[in-house]
């Protein structure tokens, strides 16, 4: 199997992860009981295994896509000249890690 097949296959995980997140947020809107119920569901080993797979998938997608993204930028986009490819590559990692750290800290109750 070629790597791009695996890359495409992460699509299944992404679609599902979106729907799991939708369910979680939907339940938050339903009130405290529904919220408690959905959090308890997430403790199910199947959900935990799925989220572990999802984590592997997003890391794989990030690493592969961040490598492919810079060269997909034309030399100029209208008046905008994108940064050199290695810098753009580094910027993608910085944004990804930065957003993940901040979002994780907020969700984990470290900040806010």
């Amino acid at each position, binding site marked *: 199997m070629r790597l791009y097949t695996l890359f495409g296959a992460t699509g299944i995980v992404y679609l599902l992860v979106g729907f799991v997140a939708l369910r979680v947020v939907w339940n938050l809107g339903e009130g405290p009981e529904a919220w408690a119920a959905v959090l308890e569901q997430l403790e199910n080993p199947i959900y935990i295994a799925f989220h572990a797979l999802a984590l592997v998938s997003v890391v794989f997608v990030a690493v592969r896509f961040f490598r492919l993204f810079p*060269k997909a930028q034309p030399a100029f*986009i209208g008046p905008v000249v994108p940064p050199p490819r290695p810098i753009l590559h580094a910027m993608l990692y910085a944004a990804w890690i930065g957003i993940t750290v901040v979002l994780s800290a907020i969700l984990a109750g470290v900040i806010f």
Partner: protein
Amino acid sequence: MSDAKTMKLVITRFDPDVDAVPRTQEYEIPVQPDWKVLDAVNFIKDEVDGTLSHRWSCRMAVCGSCGMMVNGEPKLTCKVALSDYGDELLIEPLANFPVVRDLVVEMEGFMDKFKSVKPWIITAKEMAAEEGTNRQSPAELEVFKQFSMCINCMLCYSACPVVANEPEFLGPAAIALGHRYNMDSRDEGQAERNEIFRGEGTVFSCSYANECSEVCPKNVDPAAAVNQAKLNAVIDWATGLVIPRKGP
């Protein structure tokens, strides 16, 4: 002459007048350590079996004729050393193309796609000879130079999983060529080509598997071109929504 070692080449044979489907034929031949894969195929043609058909010409990765599947991978056979492989080698015609005979594939559809992207400089008004020449700075050349290095060897079409399944897809080399003209400072045909890029053989069929760029023997990086072309085609499309185009 150094000590010759022997190698087995398994080659796809197909004669449309005789064979219903392609078959394979095995050749045990003496090989030299400095041979390219093409040298081995030429040896068979010249010394062992004159009925074998294959295309080749320059032997130096310029003409783009000698593309074949070597152990399942599209390769320019004049560019890959025989010594990179073991004692046995499988040689097939380029994948994703109709086979004319043995290792010779039909290029007609490929050439049609090439022509369809209008690979020439389009200007709204022809410049009179007295006006002089079109000038282009080295920086302006650099923008598309890489995409103009294609030798039409078609390896990228053999490697592309989309070409394999969607025959109407314009494909890597043709889109790279169209994109090369779109990025040319002298050209004014972007709107026409972007329309073609959004048409039936759409650039959006590409899934960015990047296989074309992996096999390209000239580092054209067609996957980069195709995906740059997508962004340009989107911007052109969005602009068209805001500012309706005049003309037909």
